[in-house]
Structures are given as structure tokens and as C-alpha cells.
């Protein structure tokens, strides 16, 4: 192993990437863990917003629908980097002001919570549209059958609407998840030590830019590959009961 790295001229890179100091590998992995934590949180928070948003847009009153239209339009119109700056500073400022007003003094806002909140609000706008489309794609007769058999609304949501829309929503949601993993990199701008910021620091300290950014790229790629496999399984499950579009296959 050592010899192989030596012949390939990679022994220096291997040292730089080693998990224990003076290598920076541990820092990168910590950054990756932070990124994933935020991506998970933001995606989940976004899904929650999206489900409420989709229901509100489809079944809500005119005022709720207008408010949701403003939300999805504004969020999708403004570049994410700008949104992150606005939501992060506005959000932490509002919390601090409220805290000071209540006499607690300034509070330290956890980077993870802030990141989840900021990206979650962004994801929510896109989720709203993905889920709205998926719910609309459900054959109306299936929801009518649930109604005709006396299913209460929440049970219909759980037993019919969500499983029936999954096959329509999965491709869009898979996209959103991958976007969430990569949007975490934008949080570097507010000083949150996720994978990209850690990489930049490691690269800056060692001047080994190529090594570290290539390593970070590989980590992002690994996330994508695992996600792809995961969503392929979800989609297979969601499409159970539907004939395959490929000829001669079920």
C-alpha cells in the first residue's frame, strides 16, 4: 500500500487526508457529518412545509392560497445564496431581539438549527409544488372511494393520499434531496463549518487545493450515489401495483 502510493506520487496527499492530525481527513468527515445533518433536517422540514403547503394550495381558502402563492413565488424567485443571507441574519436578529425584549440577553444560535431552518424554508417552497403536482395526479376516484367508505380526512391522507402520490412525487423529491445536500455548501457563507468550508480551510492551510477539493467532490459524489440507490428502492416500492412501462415486464 505504502509503496503503491509512493510510486503514484500520492503519499503526500494520503498524509494530508489522514484522519488524525496533522492530516485533515477528520475535519472533512466532521464537515460531511454536519452537511448531512443539515440536509436531512432541511429536507424533512421542507417536506413538512410542502405537505401543508400543497394541502393549503389545493384545499385552502382564498387568503391561504394567496399567502402560499407569495411564499412559493418569492422563495423560488430569489437566488438561494441571497435567501440564505437574508433568512440567516434576519432570523437570528429576530430571535435575539425577542430574547432581549424578554430580558434574556443575546442568545447563541446553533449553526445546525439555523441551517436547517434556512434551507428548510427554501426546500419547503419547492416541496409544496412537487407534492401539489403529485396529489393532483392521483386518480380522483381513489380519494372518492375513501370518502364513500367513511374514511376520516386524516386517515385518507395517511392511507390513500400519501401512498398514492408517492410514485408521482419520488422523482421530484429525489431531486430536492440532492439539491439539499449541495445547498448545504452555501451555508459556508455564514461561517457554518460544513464540508465545503472545512475543505476550504484545509486547502488554505496546506495549499493543497487540488487534493482537498477533489476529496470533497468525491464525498459529495458518494452521497449522490447512495441517495440514488436509496431513492431507486423507494420508487420501486412506491410504484408497486403499477405496470412497468418497459415492454414485457411487470
Amino acid at each position, binding site marked *: 500500500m505504502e509503496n503503491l502510493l509512493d510510486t503514484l506520487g500520492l503519499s503526500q496527499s494520503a498524509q494530508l487526508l489522514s484522519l488524525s492530525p496533522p492530516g485533515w481527513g477528520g475535519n472533512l468527515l466532521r464537515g460531511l457529518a454536519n452537511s448531512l445533518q443539515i440536509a436531512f433536517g432541511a429536507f424533512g422540514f421542507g417536506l413538512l412545509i410542502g405537505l401543508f403547503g400543497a394541502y393549503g394550495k389545493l384545499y385552502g381558502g382564498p387568503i391561504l392560497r394567496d399567502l402560499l402563492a407569495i411564499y412559493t413565488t418569492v422563495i423560488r424567485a430569489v437566488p438561494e445564496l441571497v435567501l440564505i443571507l437574508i433568512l440567516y441574519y434576519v432570523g437570528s436578529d429576530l430571535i435575539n431581539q425577542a430574547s432581549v425584549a424578554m430580558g434574556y440577553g443575546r442568545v447563541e444560535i446553533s449553526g445546525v438549527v439555523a441551517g436547517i431552518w434556512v434551507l428548510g424554508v427554501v426546500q419547503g417552497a419547492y416541496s409544496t409544488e412537487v407534492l401539489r403536482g403529485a396529489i393532483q395526479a392521483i*386518480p380522483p*376516484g*381513489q380519494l*372518492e*372511494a*375513501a*370518502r*364513500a*367508505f*367513511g*374514511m*376520516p380526512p386524516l*386517515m385518507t391522507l395517511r*392511507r*390513500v393520499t400519501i*401512498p*398514492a402520490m*408517492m*410514485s408521482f412525487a419520488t422523482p421530484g423529491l429525489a431531486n430536492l434531496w440532492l439539491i439539499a445536500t449541495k445547498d448545504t455548501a452555501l451555508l459556508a457563507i455564514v461561517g457554518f463549518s460544513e464540508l465545503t468550508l472545512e475543505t476550504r480551510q484545509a486547502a488554505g492551510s496546506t495549499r493543497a487545493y487540488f487534493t482537498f477539493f477533489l476529496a470533497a467532490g468525491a464525498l459529495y459524489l458518494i452521497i449522490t450515489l447512495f441517495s440514488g440507490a436509496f431513492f431507486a428502492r423507494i420508487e420501486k416500492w*412506491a410504484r*408497486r*401495483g*403499477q*405496470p412497468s412501462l418497459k415492454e414485457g415486464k*411487470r
Partner: protein
Amino acid sequence: MTAQARQTNAPAPADMAILVEDLHKSFGALEVLKGVSLSARKGDVVAIIGGSGSGKSTLLRCINFLETPTSGRITVAGEEIAMRRDGSPADRRQIERIRTRLGMVFQAFNLWTHRTLLENVIEVPVHVLKTPRAEAIARARILLERVGLADKADTFPAFLSGGQQQRAAIARALAVDPSAMLFDEPTSALDPELVGEVLTVIRDLAAEGRTMLLVTHEMKFAREVASHVVYLFEGQIEEQGPPDQLFGAPQSARLKQFLQTVG
């Protein structure tokens, strides 16, 4: 069997399965039902016939409030459905409870495509009626057997013919042990060669004394299984009576003409 029952005196509420009184329904300015009253006692098979746009499906769908009536009164198994001024059900729990007593069969089957036939049949008993799962499954297997689909229990609806799907939908409706069944043109979406298998199942149900309201275009079938036939024309009952009278000696000119056109 029930034809004579109908001719006896004023209906005793005790054996009244469905009672519709002065039902009106408008879609915007269009009045689809203009004061329809009809009743079905336990064991009655009431066939509702009429041309396209006569309001027969709307009438059926108003009974379980899939459509909101504009005005009128609907009583199911002796319990009047509480309505708000605008016709919507006043008590969500009441209407949900009554809906579980009315097994509905749709023109387009409307099986839940993400569930197998067995899962479709046990869905309402297990989750709405809270029947123990094992009991619901045992019953569902008997019902699937009955409609000739025992070997398809674990198949998803999309892989079955229309006739098989509709028979499964009938099993789903039977699974709630309904006090009355509502059939909304159950054979209209089927290929002609598949109609027979579904009608056979419905005929068996009629023979065992199930209460049914049946909107249909199958005149021969209506004549054969119905105990009472209602002819709707432009949102009103134009003529009604026992099938032999209605099909054999129609009184109204419109019904005569209708029967001629549908053969």
C-alpha cells in the same frame, strides 16, 4: 319477493333502508334534481334508469353525500342525515358512520391501486371499522372467493381485467357488511364480454336479499333483478313501478320512447 312487500301500506320506518324525500340538487344555475323522492325497504332492489343527464348518478351520489344536495331529506336505516342550510352534512362523524353502512360500487371501480385486492378489501374494515386484522382477512378471503377471485388476492388491481376489478370492488363494498349497496353504473366501463360476470355477482346478491340501489343501462338486467324500477327524466321521476309493469306496459310517452331507443 319484495314486490308484494312494497304494496302493503305506509312504510314502517323500522324496515326502511333508504328514504329520499324531495331531493333537489343544482350545479350552479343548472338544476339536476328537481324534487326526487324514493324509498327502499330492506331487501328491495331499486333500479334507477334514465337517459344521459337525467340525474340518476347524481341522485345515487347524493345519498351518501358524495354530492351535496341543495335541499331535501335523506334517511338511511332510520337515521336522518343532519344537513346544514347549504345542504352539506352538519355532523362529519355521522356522515362518516352512515357512509360505512353504504357499500358503494363505482363505474370506474376506484380500487386503491397501491394495494392488492386483499388489502383493498380489508382496508375499510381494519382501519375505519377497527375489525381485528385476522378476522378481516378471513372474511375478505371468503368474499374474494365468492366473487371468484380467491387466487388473485395478492394481485394489484392494475394487472386485472375490468370485470375482475369490478368484482373485487364489489367484494370491498361487501366487506363492510353494508345495510344497503349503491351501484353507480357498475358495468358501463366494461367491455361487453365482461359485463356478464359482474352482473352474475350482482344477481346473486339480489337473490340473497341484499338491499340495493342500482343505476344501470342494462335494461334486461334491471327487469330481471329489480323489485322496483324508477325512471328519471330531467331530474324528476317520470314513472316508477314494478319492473314488469314499467317495462311491459309503460305509461309515459317519454319512457316508451326511452325504452325504444335503448332497445
